[in-house]
């Protein structure tokens, strides 16, 4: 026996990225634009979708949702009231599971997603500010929700996540009057780690600011088509 050094020089996430590229070509074939929506648990992703997607359906943009959760179908049940195709993707069985979606998990759910009948697929990732930032799923855009109940310093603690997203939605602004929270400082911290980010202030509960998010979603397929 003797020891040999093997030069590898390979991104350890290449295997995931290869599957993400396969997802991407499936999306392209059906002309579907894909958004990877991420946040900490409880930031309001599902309620934001409930609000924003309601209007999109009326405007003729065909939307589907892939709902990633550690467990259960609570979010999918809520969104199914919008009469959109909603597919539940659980990352575990029974008592918890993976803390994020990866390309392979999304791939396993694709047969259930009616890609040819939708223009826009929103993938609601598992609530977590760390792992989802690492794993591409074949999306056109990564976006995130952070809420004013989380702390102004979060962008500085989770720069990987905040840097990976082109749109950061600050949610629950209706609560600002009850909180000792400096929303300007949060926005400054977001822009410190990601100067290119678009930042929107929204209340999914009151609907305040949701129109801007809806308009952003509506503009996305044209942009994705232009770069394809």
């Amino acid at each position, binding site marked *: 026996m003797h020891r040999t050094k093997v030069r590898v*020089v390979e991104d350890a996430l290449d295997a995931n990225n290869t599957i993400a590229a396969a997802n991407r070509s499936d999306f392209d074939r059906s002309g579907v634009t894909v958004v990877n929506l991420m946040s900490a648990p409880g930031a309001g992703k599902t309620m934001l979708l409930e609000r924003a997607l309601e209007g999109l359906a009326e405007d003729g943009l065909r939307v589907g949702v892939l709902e990633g959760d550690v467990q259960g179908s609570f979010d999918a049940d809520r969104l199914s009231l919008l009469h959109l195709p909603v597919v539940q993707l659980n990352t575990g069985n029974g008592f918890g599971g993976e803390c994020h979606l990866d390309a392979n998990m999304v791939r396993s759910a694709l047969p259930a997603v009616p890609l040819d009948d939708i223009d826009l697929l929103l993938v609601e990732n598992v609530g977590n500010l760390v*792992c989802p930032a690492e794993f591409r799923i074949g999306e056109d855009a990564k976006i995130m929700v952070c809420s004013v109940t989380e702390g102004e310093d979060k962008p500085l603690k989770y720069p990987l996540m905040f840097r990976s997203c082109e749109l950061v939605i600050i949610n629950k602004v209706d609560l600002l009057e009850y909180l000792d929270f400096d929303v300007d400082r949060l926005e400054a911290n977001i822009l410190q*780690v990601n100067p290119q980010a678009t930042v929107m202030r929204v209340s999914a509960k009151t609907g305040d600011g949701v129109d801007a998010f809806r308009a952003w979603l509506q503009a996305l397929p044209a942009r994705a088509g232009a770069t394809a």
Partner: protein
Amino acid sequence: MHEFDLSNAVLATVRKHAAGRRVTHVTLRIGRLRQVVKETLAFYLGIVGKDTECEGATLEIIDVPAVLRCTRCKNEWEIEIPAFICGTCGPGAVEVATGEEFMVESIEVEDEENAACTAPR
């Protein structure tokens, strides 16, 4: 917390290149912006590598500093805190020069003595 999934990704990459040979040493190159806790990654690699050809392999991690570059003034500087703004030109033209790497750099494997002779030519 992401170290567990990252350890699985490392193991898969290493095993692919080891092609069944016993692995004695793994060298990773990890950028500081990846926010990887090295001790935790090493701990998980020990767990996921158990009962594979990587069991017992030693781990070496090369730290890559977080270096930014301003595309406007061409300045390059290392950061210790996440601030992606050029001191001269402000935000908007800053790109990451190094610090986002998550690479398997090399592995050391045990070869049969006569492997060179039986290899196809």
